[in-house]
């Protein structure tokens, strides 16, 4: 089994009366791109800040490369690069100066060929002063600094906020490339399509707790698929089939959502009715995401343990 690059269990942190993390379990394996999803205020940045040793945990365990992220912060940081969600630059330093300074501060080489390559691909002018950059360009400075030299781990906190779609595309390519080199990536985001495209595994959190975790395939397996079919004759009555929801018929067309265990029965019924066209779509990450939230809304108390159990 590969090394756990990040491992937290029962992580707790409160800011005054606000419980930011309430027993968070996160595990990121070496070499994977791990999507870290949650709405604003769910605790994504708090988790990352504990993992970077910027803030102290109240309770629970947090390990980074097997070490203590608080006590060994500086030495652990030699192996990683971090892109904050809201990049702030020094007003009188140029972008190029900031990139080289951050590289030197993590003891990474500043003359790696990737530095020039990244500047070019992100179309970033490194001679502008910090205060002259737009939000998107500030984000690019931090991304170039993180990607310009190899690292074992990239910690990216909503890295594409402020980037235009073309740059999001460049970012996605870069992530795929460094992943191919074996870099582990923790990708916090609420842009679902991005995570869906890049992530091997996903952890969805809410109110400081994990509501869903696993590979996308595993998670899809546990959720309803959307089925749309056209039949020759009468639309069969599917309302009695276990696991069928959102049923609607329009002439010879029927659409429904179905849980994995109800799918064989639905297919049998449709085949019997003389199906001429059939599409079955696995749930998108967006649907998983909304589904995870809907269920915690309904069962705010004990959803945590249930979802954890279901996901495994």
């Amino acid at each position: 089994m590969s090394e756990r690059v990040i491992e937290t269990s029962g992580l707790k942190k409160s800011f005054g009366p606000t419980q930011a993390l309430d027993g968070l379990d996160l595990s990121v394996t070496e070499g994977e791109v791990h999507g870290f999803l949650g709405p604003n205020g769910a605790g994504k940045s708090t988790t990352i800040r504990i993992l970077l040793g910027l803030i102290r945990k109240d309770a629970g365990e947090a390990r980074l490369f097997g070490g203590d992220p608080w006590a060994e912060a500086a030495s652990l940081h030699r192996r990683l690069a971090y892109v904050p969600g809201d990049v702030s630059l020094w007003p009188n330093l140029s972008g190029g100066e900031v990139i080289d300074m951050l590289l030197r501060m993590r003891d990474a080489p500043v003359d790696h060929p990737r530095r020039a390559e990244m500047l070019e691909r992100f179309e970033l002018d490194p001679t502008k002063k910090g205060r002259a950059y737009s939000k998107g360009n500030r984000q690019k400075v931090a991304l170039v600094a993180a990607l310009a030299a190899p690292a074992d781990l990239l910690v990216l906190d909503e890295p594409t906020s402020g980037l235009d779609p073309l740059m999001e595309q460049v970012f996605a390519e870069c992530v795929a490339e460094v992943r191919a080199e074996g870099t582990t990536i923790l990708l916090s985001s609420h842009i679902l399509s991005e995570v869906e495209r890049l992530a091997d595994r996903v952890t969805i959190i809410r109110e400081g707790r994990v509501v869903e975790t696993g590979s996308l395939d595993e998670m899809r397996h546990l959720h309803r698929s959307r089925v749309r079919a056209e039949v020759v004759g009468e639309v069969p009555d599917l309302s009695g089939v276990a696991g069928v929801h959102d049923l609607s018929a329009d002439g010879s067309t029927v659409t429904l959502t179905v849980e994995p265990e109800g799918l064989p029965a639905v297919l049998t019924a449709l085949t019997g009715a003389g199906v001429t066209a059939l599409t079955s779509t696995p749930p998108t990450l967006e649907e998983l995401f909304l589904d995870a939230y809907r269920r915690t809304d309904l069962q705010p108390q004990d959803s945590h343990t249930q979802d954890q159990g279901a996901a495994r």
Partner: protein
Amino acid sequence: MTGLGRLTRFSLRRSRILIGAWTAVLTLFVYTSAAATDSLYKTPADQISAAESINTSSALVALYGPILDVTSLGELAMTKTTVTYAVLVMALAIALVRRHTRVEEESGRAELIGGLAVDPRAPLVSAVLVGALTSLLIAVLAAVADIAGGLPVAGSVWFAGSWLGVGLVGTGVGALCAQLSPNARTCGAVAAGVVAVLYAMRALGDTTSAHWLSWLSPFGWSTQLRAWSDPRGWVLLLDLLLAVALSAVALGLRARRDLGAGLFPERPGPAVGSPRLADALALNLKVHATSLVVWTVACAVLGALMAAIVPSIGSILDSAGTRDLMERIGGVGALQETLVAALVSVAAIIVSCFAASVVGHGGGEENDGRTEEVLATATERSTTFLAVALLALGGVAWLLVVTGAAMAVGAVGAAVSAGQVLAAALVQIPAVWVVAALALLALSWHSRWAVAGWGLIVAFFLVGPLAELLQLPGWVAGLSPYSHVPKVPADPVSVGPLLGLTAAAAVVVATAWWRYRERDIG
């Protein structure tokens, strides 16, 4: 002007604590000065001799301005407030205008306002209004405080007029300086430089034969108004005209530039970083490089100006009567020694502001998330703390060395030796270290408290005079680290207090260091 009223109310609300605290302190000081003076002198003769002794000390005249009518109780009571504390009125006006113009532009918040139904000129006009209204508020309260303290009504009102005038000029200076650079700190530094030059011109004009220099400075006008006897009301028109002219030029410059831009286009920076820019201390030095150069030059000029006063003290007092007085207190030499000690104590307070600025900036770096970016690299907590601490502590020591050296060079020909002058400046270092250490402790407790250094400087500056006026027990004035510095060269260099202050600073810095390593960042 669309949005002006709303914007002004919004700004006043946002700055209500700054305005309230500053106004309260100034009003309190005016009241205690007014109330205490009457009881201080039993006979008119006592009062006149007190006023004359101030006039004979060019150190005090350089600091406070002359007393034009020695028979006026009001003028004697308001000696310190007319010019010296008027600097605080001007500083508040500048700070307010800068805060609601350039700081807003630099942070991008001005863009948010610019997108609303607001006239493009409204933010600047509103900031000028905030400065003017605050000056008016302070003036009204100062007049009330003087009258309540038992001073004549007419004089109190004219005196308040001089503060209003200085506040209005400060508003204009702030508005103009805010147009110059896209960097709010640079704008603030330029404005501070303007205040220093205006103050220095008055000090030179009042203490040398070049009296016309005082007439070039609003601080000189405040004395020349002669608020307490035979007032010349037209002098206030000078303040008003200057304020209107400065504000008009500021509005003109604002109309010719883009939001967020300075007067000159920003030059591109290097595409690659210097190999030296590789740790938190180098970063902090780079960030403060311009500021440090400006401070160094300013301290050299300040030291030279102060030194210029020293030899003149003998000639000013060269009359039969005063020479007799002088011989009794120890001759020209003793007088110059006292003067040097008084001047370097002022320099120490000014230099402390550099430490407050560096530590306050450290808090800003953390609040804006830049400290986090550094700490996410292989940088130790201790390094980011020491980067701030070393620059603050080393910076003030360096600036006092510069001030002392400039004074020592400038004072050649005086009765005090260059070595004595330099020593006078150097013994201030431990006291300033204590102030810097306390500011670091505030930063280490929470980044938001990093600006506490400014409050400490004002508090330590005021606690001595206030304790004297209110006749508080001696230990109250002793709270200020500045009060423990030996008055070199008038007094010998006593090692005890210096070691005590240094030890206190070391303990506070060590506590701050420990706390900074333990707490959450951000």
